[in-house]
């Protein structure tokens, strides 16, 4: 399976991608104010630059979604049309995800669970399964 992307972690995402490779969704907890964040270099609330890693529960809700009808990459050739979008984790941060709705129409605000999926070539991605 050809991976659709070879992720290149940067400083604010290094812990996240290390976690993803181990099947976990790791977030940043601000050392200054305790806010739970993701992909930031400084805390937007207090400005602190030190973070601890904290694992997400996976519980999430749909912020927005689409259904894609063109395969822009070979990885998706046999998958179109497929749903994808943005989900908000219970802890706060939002993520781009594939979305599985088990047949019924999707809506903004639908609840579900995010899991780590294999994209091939050693890469991992995220999939939201609607409850």
């Amino acid at each position, binding site marked *: 399976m050809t*991976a*659709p*992307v*070879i*992720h*290149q*972690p*940067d400083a*604010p*995402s290094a812990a*996240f991608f290390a976690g993803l490779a181990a099947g976990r969704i790791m977030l940043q907890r601000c050392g200054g104010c305790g806010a739970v964040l*993701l*992909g930031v270099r400084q805390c937007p609330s207090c400005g602190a630059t030190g973070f601890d890693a904290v694992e997400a529960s996976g519980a999430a809700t749909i*912020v*927005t*979604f*689409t*259904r*894609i*009808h*063109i395969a*822009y*990459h070979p*990885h*998706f050739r046999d*998958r179109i*049309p*497929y749903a*994808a*979008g*943005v989900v908000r984790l219970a802890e706060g941060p*939002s*993520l*781009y*995800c*594939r979305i599985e709705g088990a047949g019924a129409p999707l809506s*903004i605000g639908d609840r579900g669970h995010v899991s780590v999926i294999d*994209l091939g070539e050693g*890469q*991992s*991605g*995220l999939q939201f399964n609607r409850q």
Partner: protein
Amino acid sequence: MRLDAAIAGLGTHGLRRDAEGTATDHAWSAVRAAADDAGLALGQVDGLIVCRSGGATEADLGLELQAELGLEDLKFLEVALCEGASAILAIQTAALLVTAGVATHVACVFGDAPMRPGERASAAFSGVKGPVGLRSLRYGAGLFGAPALYALACRRYMAEYGATEEDLAAVAIAARAWAVRNPSAIFRTPLDRDTYFNARWIAEPLRLYDCANPVNGAAAVIVTTGARAADLRRPPVPVLGMGQAHNRAAMKSFAVADLLRPAELAAARMFASAGLTPADVDVLQCYDAFSFLTLMSLEAYGFCPPGQAGAMVRDGGIGPGGAFPVNTGGGHLSGFYLQGMTPVVEAVIQARGDGGERQVPGIRTVMAGNNGGILDYHATLLLGAAGARP
């Protein structure tokens, strides 16, 4: 310091749906055409600002354009990169340069050649762009290209503000009605409601006619002072006001208030700089790479209250003969997709009264808007009628 700038020349080249020409080929021709339109010898251009699309590289179009044009001594040279907002960003910089006397005749050009031999149009702009950091999660999710991410914004906008599929259709149909009257437009076959709704999905809720098509081509303008422009070949189109706003909250929250904020702020700053209000604008040329962006622009710029754009666009309200003409050349959707330059080209044509069959009579002001990234970067420009004193 009072702004003293006018657009004195306009040139386009290409605007083709085939794979003809490189971005530099088209940009070279467009700058020469703009200088000629202004009545300037190319050597009189003493400032050059080059813009290219996000997927293009310095090798496609960049600083080397100076040498290609044979411009031996420039007082200002820059590659301006702000995604879809680059063109107006460049014109704003040029306006400041001529006002300050740094340069006298500044050429601003955007060139692009996303159509490549043997590739479908959907392959343009849809590759992986710098898969660094968290943003690269979009590709694993299958969110390639602009339509996917704009579809996410459109879904939120429709859900929160009550816009309907009929509103999107009305925008696409109005753009096509203008394009029918524009010989430079790419798509000139009239579009009806059934054709719109029977077309295939691209990324729901966006159908085929909700999305712009890539073209190869370029557009350029010459910016100079009002006094200098008055001595040139064409009546000067005065720059009355301008604004920018850049705000990255949109992609974090997808709340419509955040999606609209850069456009709102850029318009408010433009109106403040001109001492005018939305009620003073006669024609709008907005960034309509996707149909719903016209709805969002009408609301964010202050032409109607939030959530009320549907009422403006239904029943031909923004089309030919409508109460408020928008994207009178067909916009990106049906005219041609040269990113930030598309609204600028049509704004200058209308301000000059050169619109032929699509000319809006009695224009005093035209607004142009540019949107870059996914509603991240915004730039606006207010132009006066050609020859009018600012």
